[in-house]
């Protein structure tokens, strides 16, 4: 392979090629340094990285970053539900169909997002995640969520609690990313993301319905009563901040940031927000609880990544999972 001839040919076909792989036109110098240290076998990999830098808009395209974060979140959810479905005795029989459907939806979202991202789409294994919530330690507060009848996990209670938290992070993240996708050239991508976003919200509603039923010892039914303050027996919508969300076996609130404010809080308020577009909505007719339930709030990508890194293993961190710069 004549590398220098190939680059020369590319430059003739595309005069800006060298500018785009290296704005200071030091590509050959860079290559020269690299060439001293690599074997011939590594050359195709170097070429691939050059082409990605030149045509992938890897670091400059905000749309791509939003979609990549969305894809990473879909992998987080997909592997969690897929692992649960493959763990005998974890999911009660009345819930198997629902969780299978949710897993398949997430696989569809992965398929769709990869279709948009193309060759730049990363992929992740189940070993890239730490579902204990320990950020790679494997012994975080949610460690028994995938253990049948583990601590706090009778009837899969902790599994459904984690599913609620993951899908709420998902719906808040898509909501936060939507404005970035709203450009003239990406309206179809925006609409696709909106059509995924509402499915995440439907999943979340179902997780909450299941948790209400587990709390009432009525699993497999949809009309068990929600119980204030809604952390253990939630409504199908978010009441204020749901008292910090589900409680872990060690009595911590590992999902509290899921319902809290993002950054800046003015744009990404906590779910207890009662004012929209500068209009305060609490009145003699409408309580703060009702107003907070009527609106879900977006979350910024930085806060989403901070939350998700708690569920990322050392292997995932090495791959850059949930570590984009926004």
């Amino acid at each position, binding site marked *: 392979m004549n590398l220098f001839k190939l680059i020369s040919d590319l430059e003739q076909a595309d005069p800006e090629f060298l500018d785009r792989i290296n704005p200071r036109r030091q590509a050959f110098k860079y290559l020269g340094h690299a060439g001293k240290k690599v074997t011939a076998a590594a050359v195709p990999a170097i070429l691939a990285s050059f082409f990605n830098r030149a045509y992938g808009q890897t670091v400059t395209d905000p749309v791509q970053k939003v979609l990549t974060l969305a894809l990473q979140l879909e992998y987080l959810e997909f592997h969690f539900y897929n692992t649960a479905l493959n763990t005998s005795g974890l999911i009660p029989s*009345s*819930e198997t*169909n*629902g969780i299978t*459907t*949710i897993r*398949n939806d*997430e*696989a*569809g*979202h*992965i*398929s*769709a997002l990869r*279709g*948009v991202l193309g060759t730049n789409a990363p992929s*992740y*294994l189940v*070993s890239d995640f730490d579902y204990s919530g320990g950020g790679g330690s494997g012994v975080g507060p949610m460690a028994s969520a995938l253990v049948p009848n583990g601590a706090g996990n009778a009837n899969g209670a902790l599994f459904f609690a984690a599913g609620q938290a993951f899908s709420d992070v998902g719906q808040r993240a898509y*909501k936060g990313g*939507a*404005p970035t996708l*709203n450009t003239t050239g990406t309206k*179809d*991508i*925006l*609409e*696709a993301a*909106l*059509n*995924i*976003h*509402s*499915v*995440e919200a*439907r*999943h*979340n*509603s*179902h997780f909450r319905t299941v948790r209400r039923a587990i709390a009432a010892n009525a699993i497999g*039914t*949809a*009309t068990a009563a*929600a119980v204030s303050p809604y952390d253990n027996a939630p409504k199908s*919508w978010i009441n204020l901040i749901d008292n910090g969300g589900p409680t872990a076996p060690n009595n911590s609130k590992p999902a509290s940031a899921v319902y809290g404010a993002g950054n800046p809080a003015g744009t990404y308020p906590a779910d207890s927000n009662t004012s*929209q*577009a500068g209009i305060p*909505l609490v*009145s*003699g*007719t*409408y309580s703060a609880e*009702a*107003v907070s*339930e*009527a*609106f*879900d*709030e*977006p979350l910024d990508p930085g806060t989403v990544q901070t939350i998700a890194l708690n569920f990322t293993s050392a292997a995932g961190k090495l791959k850059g999972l949930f570590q984009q710069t926004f």
Partner: protein
Amino acid sequence: MSHNVSPGSQPHETGLDRPLYTPIKRRSFFMYAGATAGATALVLAGCKDDDNNDPSRIDVGSGDGGILNYAYALEQLEAAFYAQVRTSAYYTASGTPAAIKQVFDDLALHEAIHRDFLRGALTANSITPLQDLKPDFSSIDFASLNGILTAARTFEDTGVAAYNGAGRYLSNNAFLALAGKIVSVEARHAALIRDMITYNSFVSSDVVNTFSPTLPANATTAYTGAGTPSLTPGNGNPVAGAERSRKPQDVLNSVNNYLASGSKLSASSFS
């Protein structure tokens, strides 16, 4: 019959029914009358036929204001529906479970809050809100839980598909963000209503493009999106595992079945 949860939210009309304290001289009266006639002619000249060429339909308008008024119309309808549910034979029967009544109470509040918020947002942005719409719920069976849930499912699923399809027409990202805050709550409603009708139907194939993944044989092989059907997003193509958004006029063609004559809508700018 229009039901509003919050009568206090209705526009104030004080001033219109007050007597005129200053008598108008006859010549002045004709001066005003002439000016009004001229203004009316100007207004009529400014009207143009919409694509439906149906003068009985109210058009939601164009641009971001048109989409906001479209959302306002849908929320008016949903709020009126749940208000009527709360006075229905089913809801008021002595044996109706408290947990089910609580669901309808919440839904009625959420939709009324959406309606009143959108009206406030329209006014705050100097966009004239659509008139108060008169619903026609004569096709709905309010006496049975199934009748109510079936209609609720239609309204909620339609609402989600409507917001998802409207987002692309918004140029102001503040409005897009607001639509996003509302649509996920509508999706929560839809999922619960569906689970109440048939358990585990919260994302059935009539609202979501179901997808069957072809999973890798082992945990060391990455899943990269294989499965059926193979769908390519873009150009309005369906998206795997995602809902099916609908265009405003398509939505209104369905919604008009629940609006009385004189309140039926069109969205001629968003085709």
